[in-house]
């Protein structure tokens, strides 16, 4: 039965992808991309990859849609027709695709128990993580402790992306006069009332995801994105000007490095205690407790950075939209 469900989902995914290629209205393309993300996430759920599905749903369907829509609002809705011939490009794409498919013949069959991925580190994680780290959600153990260094790198990459966006588009410390006339969805009374009721619930849910990453799906990445989405909802329904009044761009700008530094400081503290960078065993008298504290703190660091980076990027994009609107 699950195979049938997987097949239907994959078929819908392929159809959506093809439809996206042929639509010239970029606004519709963005909406179909939203569907694409929902389908991807549903597939991840059927594959039991809950944490990935969580991220795909919040980042792919949520934040990406908002950011792409802001981009379209600046650049225009129609795709420019290309005058070049597509033959050469098609050839290259076909060749690359063919090579990739050829490459898969050498790969082991999907789902076999003796695949290389299941033979080296995975059994060790599965066997020892309950005693070494003691978290019910093994994904969090791998992500935050065994691969804590990788996750640190990812957090730094997110932060670096923010630096790139901020230096290109700029995030102002204070709302300018440009924003003064901006009204938000003032006409939509129903929308505003419902948004106002749901925003606190969304933020609380984000914090729940943040602090329960050890037990269920979720963690800092997802929590940061959901919390940022709540403020984006506020900016969309009330107005960017009011959202900037609640959480100022300056605050967001200073908060982004705080998370990265919090993460790094855990590593430094473990080094000062005579262990390797990001080895949480030495953070408490009992190594398992140490792991637990370390993971909570670094997840918090990830959450803070992701939240502020997402909101900051939205502010930068939306600020450009309003600027284009006024001019």
């Amino acid at each position, binding site marked *: 039965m699950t195979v049938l469900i997987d097949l239907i989902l994959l078929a819908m995914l392929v159809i959506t992808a093809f439809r996206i290629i042929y639509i010239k209205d970029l606004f519709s393309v963005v909406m179909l991309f939203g569907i694409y993300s929902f389908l991807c996430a549903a597939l991840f759920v059927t594959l039991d990859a809950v944490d990935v599905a969580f991220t795909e749903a919040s980042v792919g369907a949520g934040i990406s849609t908002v950011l792409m829509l802001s981009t379209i609002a600046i650049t225009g809705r129609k795709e420019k027709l290309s005058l070049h011939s597509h033959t050469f490009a098609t050839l290259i794409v076909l060749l690359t695709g063919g090579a990739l498919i050829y490459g898969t013949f050498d790969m082991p069959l999907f789902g076999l128990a003796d695949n290389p991925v299941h033979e080296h580190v995975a059994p060790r994680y599965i066997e020892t993580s309950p005693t070494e780290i003691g978290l019910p959600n093994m994904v969090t153990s791998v992500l935050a402790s065994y691969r804590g260094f990788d996750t640190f790198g990812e957090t730094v990459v997110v932060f670096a992306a923010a630096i790139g966006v901020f230096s290109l588009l700029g995030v102002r410390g204070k709302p300018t006069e440009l924003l003064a006339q901006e009204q938000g*969805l003032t*006409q*939509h009374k129903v*929308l505003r009332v*419902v948004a106002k*009721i*749901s925003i606190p619930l969304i933020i609380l849910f984000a914090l729940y995801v943040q602090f329960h990453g050890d037990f269920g799906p979720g963690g800092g990445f997802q929590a940061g994105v959901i919390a940022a989405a709540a403020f984006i909802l506020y900016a969309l329904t009330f107005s960017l000007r009011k959202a900037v009044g609640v959480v100022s761009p300056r605050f967001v700008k200073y908060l982004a490095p705080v998370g990265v530094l919090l993460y790094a400081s855990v590593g430094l503290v473990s080094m000062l205690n005579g262990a390797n960078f990001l080895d949480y065993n030495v953070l408490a008298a009992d190594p398992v407790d140490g792991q637990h504290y370390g993971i909570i703190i670094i997840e918090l660091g990830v959450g803070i950075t992701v939240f502020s980076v997402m909101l900051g990027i939205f502010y930068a994009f939306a600020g450009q939209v309003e600027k284009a609107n006024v001019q």
Partner: protein
Amino acid sequence: MSALDYLSAALLLLGFIFSLSGAIGLFRFPDFFTRIHASSVTDSSGAVCIILGLALQTNFDLVTVKLLFILFFLLLTGPTGSHALAKSARHGGLLTIPECQEKAKDGVS
């Protein structure tokens, strides 16, 4: 299967029928505003029946509460979305069928 299981299966089936009808209605109804009504069948009755059907499968603990929260949130945001979309469509100049007829009459006379 216990009595609760039968009840839950019946609710799931009913939810499926409502959802399917709404989806068919998306194609059968003549204009955008009538099609919103079709989508509203799936959003309200479809969601209510399916989630209640699933809730009967739980052990009546926190999982049930989470299901009910999903239902609450869908019932809160679903109509809000439909309303805002309809309002946007009218604001964007889309006319309902009675208004179209009115306009056609005015144009003739």
